[in-house]
């Protein structure tokens, strides 16, 4: 029987509980929570979890939802095979 966990981030297995703890340990900032828990760093890059995290932050800290930013979303937004990047010629990457 799985234990009772509510997941926000399925990629990195981050639970509601873990996020609440992070907020109450003094990290009420979305970028800090990302670095601390690993949320939004998995293969989906936050597509599934960021909004839920923002809602939770708003609830726990009393901030307004519109004042809570997104994390910096860097490319690639979709997983690409490492082989692709390894196949790049030198002039493709150093210009």
């Amino acid at each position, binding site marked *: 029987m*799985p*234990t009772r*966990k*509510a997941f926000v981030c399925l990629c*990195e297995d981050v639970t509601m509980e873990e996020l609440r703890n992070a907020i109450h340990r003094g990290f009420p900032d979305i970028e800090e929570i990302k670095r601390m828990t690993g949320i939004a760093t998995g293969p989906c890059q936050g*597509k599934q979890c960021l*909004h839920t995290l923002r809602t939770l932050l708003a609830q726990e800290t009393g901030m307004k939802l519109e004042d809570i930013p997104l994390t910096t979303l860097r*490319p690639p*937004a979709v997983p690409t095979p490492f082989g692709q990047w390894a*196949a790049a010629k030198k002039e493709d990457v150093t210009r």
Partner: protein
Amino acid sequence: MPDTSEKDSFEITFNGKHVRAYAVDTIAAALVRSGVHVFSRSMKFHRPRGYYCGSGRCISCVMRVNGIPGVRTCSTPAAPGMVVSTERGFPSSSHDILSVFDHVFRKEFDYQHRFIRPSFMTPLFQMIIRRLASSSRLPDSEGLDFAPFERRSCDALIIGRGVSGSVAHARLQGAGVRSLITVDNRMGPENNAPSTAFGFYEDGEVGVLSSNRIHLIKAMAVLIATGRNEVGLPLVNGDLPGVMLPEAVHQLALRRIRAGNHAVIVGMNDLKERVERDLRSSGASAVASYRDPTSVVRVLGRRCVRGVEARGTGGVTNRVKCDLVVPLGPLVPSVELAQQAGCELSVINGLWCVKSDPEGRTSIPGIFASGAVTGLVRSEDRIASGEVAASAIVNLLGGS
């Protein structure tokens, strides 16, 4: 309706067993049809995970396919003789003794505070943790064929094939824009020859992955029509196999596969009607619907969904038997690419959207946005915005 007659069927191998698949099937669809629930194990707790988002966004369906690790089976068409196997779990994903972690760490596993002392042991702990969390072996060396990048330029690049992207595509084609490229912003199951925009790079070059090659496309005008992401709800045990987002149910229904016999719908969004239609057309029944997600105490089941425990009026909890839970979470504009491009974003109803003027221009010259990613919800508005943005692009190209 796709043809699922016997003559189009073939076999694929899943964990050493034969599974029947049809020409219309993705690998994941064939597995669901043959009754497979557990597709993978989660990273930290080794909990069972199944077919979940159906749209190439999550990682619950990732498997090793023909020697290549990390393949999203929901977005990969099944082909005769394919060899598919699950990746994480010992001895297998279906029975994984490492799921003991789920019981040892009952609430969370916080790697900032665990296994860091004594400090001289940390490297060893890290090695073990990495080993346990890693999902797969390196790819088999044969069958790997990667080509160097290809640089291309074009007049107009449309990212997204949804409502507004398709409208803009037709409009630009009609206006005689010849060098026009339209790509997706995700790996979709409908996307058989995937060409997916994955990032904005220096000088506005857009990285597009298509048939095992990276293209760097420089366009005079880019239209970002990346739509919305379906997001799940953080239900207790809402990660069990048998919890499926609307798109997953839809993709199965298109292939005449029943996602489950008895469905419970949790939450409320624009896709509810389509979910109900998909359930009906595939012969499933919706046994209960909870508009307020907080009334669902937890999802029941061990290896897959067996029911839902919900709080009724007066705080009395009751249990409903089901084998499918469809969470209807918020539909969140897919702003990743726009954010990378440096476009200004703004909040509408708590959701970050791409800010665009009435002509569809974003804050970055040459980049336009239309459809749901700009915060539009009604389909008429999304269609109109695609047309307007396409006209603005025609003007820009004509004037240059």
